[in-house]
């Protein structure tokens, strides 16, 4: 008898739950949906919207990126810059992270705090001094200037993450290797690094995505459009194609696609990494 009203209420509650969940999901997913729709519809679709469903589909917007803008060139530059800056950061980060994890020296905690702090500093604060430094060093308007800039963005996180990985690795493992006659470097290379290699992949992806997403450094260190990365190129669209939404959205998709794929591919590790490093 008493179960009746309770059951009814729970059915109503369940419906309400599903309605709320679906509604929230639609609102959250809509901008992504709209980006895809606009990118795939002919120019001018967005001027007079009669339906939120696409009328006819086209790939012209994607083609125009390649024909009218050096999008392929920019994507290649992005790949180059992101791979280099992330790879180099990973190597340096690995050795720093190992040092901070295994050696207790005076001030190691302070170093750690500074590393995390430099990760959290707004990149506009770094842009200005780097600009004057690069001006003196003749690194403006070069690709390797951008790579060095991005290393300073990525390295703190690489250190922070690899310290975490080495911390979770028992020191006895290397101790055993050293008893067997391995040098300290040998123990690092043959024992520790293979064990943290899944973590290395996460560090690399993180660095890659950070560098890929940044437009501030490539846009302002580099004048010639040919040396821009895709992020820098993409931000220039907003000014020039102001009301041409469709190519803007096509460019956004091309730019976001590799990042989204990487993200979902490595979802678990990325998520736990973002919790420790606290950075995108």
């Amino acid at each position, binding site marked *: 008898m008493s179960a009746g009203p309770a059951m009814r209420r729970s059915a109503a509650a369940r419906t309400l739950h599903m309605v*709320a*969940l679906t509604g*929230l*999901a639609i609102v*959250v*997913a809509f*901008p*992504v949906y*709209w*980006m895809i729709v*606009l990118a795939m519809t002919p120019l001018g679709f*967005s001027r007079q*919207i009669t339906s939120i469903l696409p009328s006819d589909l086209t790939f012209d917007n994607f083609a125009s990126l390649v024909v009218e803008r050096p999008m392929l060139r920019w994507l290649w530059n992005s790949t180059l810059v992101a791979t280099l800056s992330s790879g180099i950061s990973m190597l340096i980060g690995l*050795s*720093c992270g190992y*040092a901070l994890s295994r050696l207790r020296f005076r001030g190691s905690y302070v*170093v750690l*705090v500074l590393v*995390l*702090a430099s990760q*959290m*500093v*707004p*990149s*506009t*604060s*770094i*842009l*200005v*001094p*780097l600009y*004057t*430094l690069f001006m003196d060093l003749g690194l403006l308007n070069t690709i390797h200037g951008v790579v*060095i800039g991005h290393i*300073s963005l990525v390295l703190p996180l690489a250190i922070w993450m690899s310290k975490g990985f080495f911390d979770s690795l028992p020191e006895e493992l290397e101790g055993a290797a050293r008893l067997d006659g391995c040098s300290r*470097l040998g123990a690092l290379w043959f024992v520790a690094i293979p064990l943290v290699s899944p973590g290395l992949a996460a560090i690399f992806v993180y660095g890659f995505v950070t560098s890929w*997403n940044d*437009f*501030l450094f490539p846009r*302002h260190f580099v004048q010639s459009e040919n040396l821009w990365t895709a992020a820098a190129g*993409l*931000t220039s*669209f*907003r000014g020039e194609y102001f*009301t041409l*939404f469709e190519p*803007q*959205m096509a*460019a*956004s998709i091309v*730019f*976001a696609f590799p*990042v*989204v794929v990487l*993200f*979902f591919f490595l979802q678990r590790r990325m*998520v736990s990494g973002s*919790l420790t490093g*606290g950075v*995108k």
Partner: protein
Amino acid sequence: MMTPPLMLLALVVGLPVLEAVMLSFDRVVLTRPKLAGDFTFHNYARLVGDADAWMAVLRSCLYMCGTVFGSIVLGLSAALLTRRIVRFRGLWRSIFILPWTMPAIVAAMVWGVMYDANFGILNQLLRMLPFVDGNVEWLLDKSIILPALIVVQVWNEFPVAYIFFLAALHSIPDELYEAASVDGASPFQQFLFVTLPQIRFVLSVIVVLLLIFGFRAFPVIFLLTGGRTETLTVATFNAAFRSYDFSYAATLGVLAICVSMVLVLIYLQLTLRNGKAEAAS
């Protein structure tokens, strides 16, 4: 063996900060090269009396508070709604994580298109409603622009809160809810007296983390307003690349570095205490 990597670290991370401090005590103005070279407190004296700069700081604070509040409400709602979902669990979660995978530039581009006053979907939808003015200048109207920017930032970063909350909710033992419902607690009371106390630590960590994100925010604000709405980060940029006063920009940058240092110390204190409390229990 450990010295070279640490020295490299000091070079890559420390040098820009050192250069920023040195610039802030100099007068490097690209349009007036003769001013440079002397040690001076000019920029700090100017900062103290610069009403625009303090407005930018205030705007940064509003932006931070708005994004933190919005992200927590949205993240917690999404987490509460998906916590006990069984069917299509992966799909629902992917939908709520999707915005976080979008680069901030892309978030700005998409919302810029949706916000467009003439042809944006938001105004076109508003025009379909009766008695509603469908000509909202989302990115020009001074009273709407900041909330409009906050919405974009919240959309982009609330999944961080969502992920944290989901993990925290899953670690609450079911017995607590059973005991509460036996005692006759309504769902709202259960949330208030069981859920909330249990996720308190995670909540505080997220608040500080999102404060840091909000403070650092640049691409969304800069790309959507072209730098017209000045938060501290945008003001730093404008001082350097609009006024070409690199020293004053560096001064604003140093101020931003100090603020983020404070936030990071709070964050570390919190996570450290959190870790200890978890170890003790």
